[in-house]
């Protein structure tokens, strides 16, 4: 038995999938520009395509997290969402702010601060929107019958993510200060509080899918988020090596950021161990693949590929090159893209009452998107390492180096096509499930399904 108000989650997921498609289109525009075909430049210059690509990424992930929270909190708290109508309004206003921002980016209405391009007036609307969301979640949790560790960790992640948005809204005359606080948003999100969100969602999925005792899962959840913060907060220093602050960050940032992969390793080991321990009876194998997949790929993309360039001696050379783009893709995909897709795969059968989880299409979607993204990572990586060598060590001109490495973008586009095919199949399945119903939710169960 589930809760009727969980239905609202479906629409957040649908919005999320729409933005993912748009994000990919703008990714292709940039990949072609790198390949030398920047024909759209007069209409969509590279900086426009980039701002749209990365902002849509953040918004589809946030929309996915919000949908997951609207689904998880009622079930964990054993209480319907306090105001479903407001949740729908929150989604619509989120969409409106998003659309305005994206259109604005095509007309030079933005702020040139990587990842935080949304202009300040719109920032305030984002804040109002997120406060509405948190209001609904927190009141439901407060009025609910239970406050589980899983729901508390998830909620804590969401609340901190909102708070950390604020340092990014302050204006600084000094570029170094600007950069310093930009990382309080960007780094402390992806290597801090978003890991709480990921951990909370992962714990919920593991409880439902493996059937392992909640007490065991939640104990390890505390250990994981403990490792996250202990390494990740001081790990912020790995962005402070070369921006105009002191040498102490070379040591502090180097040591603590090198410990960050432990949290991701713990997450991967935890997911695998719980799977082994569990009864393996849950029929939704596709959700299981995405759940184990996110734990493993995030360790590779964020943990290992992050570690690869996090020591100051290495970062001196790789800082601000395509090596960063390599890591950015697999980390975002593995940790946050895949957890959202895992949650969608798990929840759709319960929301719609259709049990389409044995389809080959779903399996193919998983493998094509993952292998495609891995290929893209390799293409960015090879281009990046060559760039570092030729530009930073041999001392060739930027433009000459870019000509040398252009061919790797052809490979990137081929792999991206494979990735996109996978995502296309995932979305085709999403559509095939149809819309959520109250009856489906009332009938839904996890264990003898």
């Amino acid at each position, binding site marked *: 038995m589930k809760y009727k108000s969980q239905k609202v989650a479906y629409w957040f997921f649908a919005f999320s999938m729409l933005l993912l498609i748009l994000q990919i289109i703008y990714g292709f525009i*940039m990949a072609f520009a790198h390949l030398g075909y*920047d024909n759209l430049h007069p209409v969509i*210059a*590279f*900086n*426009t395509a*980039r*701002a749209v690509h990365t902002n849509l990424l953040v918004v589809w992930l946030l929309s996915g997290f919000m949908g997951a929270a609207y689904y998880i909190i009622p079930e964990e708290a054993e209480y319907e969402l306090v105001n479903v109508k407001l949740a729908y309004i929150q989604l619509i206003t989120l969409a409106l702010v998003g659309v305005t921002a994206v259109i604005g980016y095509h007309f*030079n209405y*933005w*702020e*040139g*601060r*990587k990842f935080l*391009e949304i202009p300040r007036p719109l920032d305030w609307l984002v804040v109002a929107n997120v406060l509405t969301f948190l209001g609904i979640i927190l009141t439901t949790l407060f009025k609910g019958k239970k406050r589980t*560790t899983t729901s508390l960790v998830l909620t804590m992640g969401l609340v901190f993510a909102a708070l950390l948005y604020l340092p990014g809204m302050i204006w600084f*005359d*000094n*570029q*170094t*200060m600007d*950069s*310093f606080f*930009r990382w309080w948003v960007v780094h402390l999100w992806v290597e801090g509080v978003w890991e709480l969100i990921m951990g909370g969602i992962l714990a919920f999925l593991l409880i439902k899918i493996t059937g392992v005792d909640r007490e065991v899962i939640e*104990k390890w959840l*505390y*250990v994981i988020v*403990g490792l996250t*913060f*202990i390494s990740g*907060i*001081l790990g*912020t220093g790995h962005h*402070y090596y*070369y*921006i*105009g602050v*002191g*040498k*102490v*960050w070379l040591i*502090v940032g180097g040591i*603590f950021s090198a410990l960050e992969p432990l949290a991701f390793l713990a997450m991967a080991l935890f997911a695998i161990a719980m799977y082994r321990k569990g009864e393996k009876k849950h029929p939704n194998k596709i959700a299981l693949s995405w759940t184990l997949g996110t734990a493993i790929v995030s360790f590779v993309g964020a943990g290992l590929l992050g570690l690869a360039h996090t020591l100051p001696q290495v970062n*001196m050379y790789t*800082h*601000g*090159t*395509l090596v*960063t*783009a390599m890591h950015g893709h697999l980390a975002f995909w593995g940790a946050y893209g895949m957890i959202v897709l895992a949650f969608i795969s798990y929840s759709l059968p319960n929301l719609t009452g259709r049990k389409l989880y044995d389809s080959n299409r779903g399996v193919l979607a998983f493998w094509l998107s993952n292998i495609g993204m891995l290929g893209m990572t390799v293409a960015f990586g090879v281009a990046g390492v060559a760039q570092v060598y030729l*530009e*930073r*060590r*041999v*001392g060739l001109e*930027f*433009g*000459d180096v*870019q*000509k040398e490495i252009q061919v790797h973008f052809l490979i990137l586009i081929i792999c991206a096509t494979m990735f996109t095919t996978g995502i296309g199949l995932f979305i085709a399945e999403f559509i095939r499930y149809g819309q959520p119903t109250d009856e489906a939710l009332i009938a839904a169960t996890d264990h003898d399904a």
Partner: protein
Amino acid sequence: MLSKSQAKVFFLGGTMVTFVIFLGLSWNSLSKEVPKRTHEENLTAQVVAGKHIWEKNNCMGCHTILGEGAYYAPELTKVYERRGEAYIKVALMTKTPWQPRGRQMVAYGMSDKDASDVVAFLKWIGEIDLNGFPPKPDLKK
């Protein structure tokens, strides 16, 4: 074996301790190091005006500065030293599309004043003490 409440203490305690250290180090950096390393005395109204133009046009959407930004166009931290004022001003003021080695830059057609403001900003950026970044190409003959 570790119990759930011990795990919780590990999480809350560890977070608190590292967070306090982080705030302390940040305070020290911002109040003591930044003014010296960035030569705050040279942060004139013109430099700030240049920063506004830099942000308003999202230059970071193609270039990197202090190693942050996009990878479509060159790193600009040391561009003042590398190219000099005249070259940069031409790039910013030209009204005809410009594509060095096939990479297209927006033809901003800036006024002389705006272009000078951006140059002042880039000059100030170039003087920040960055612990040796960008590295000197060690294999260059």
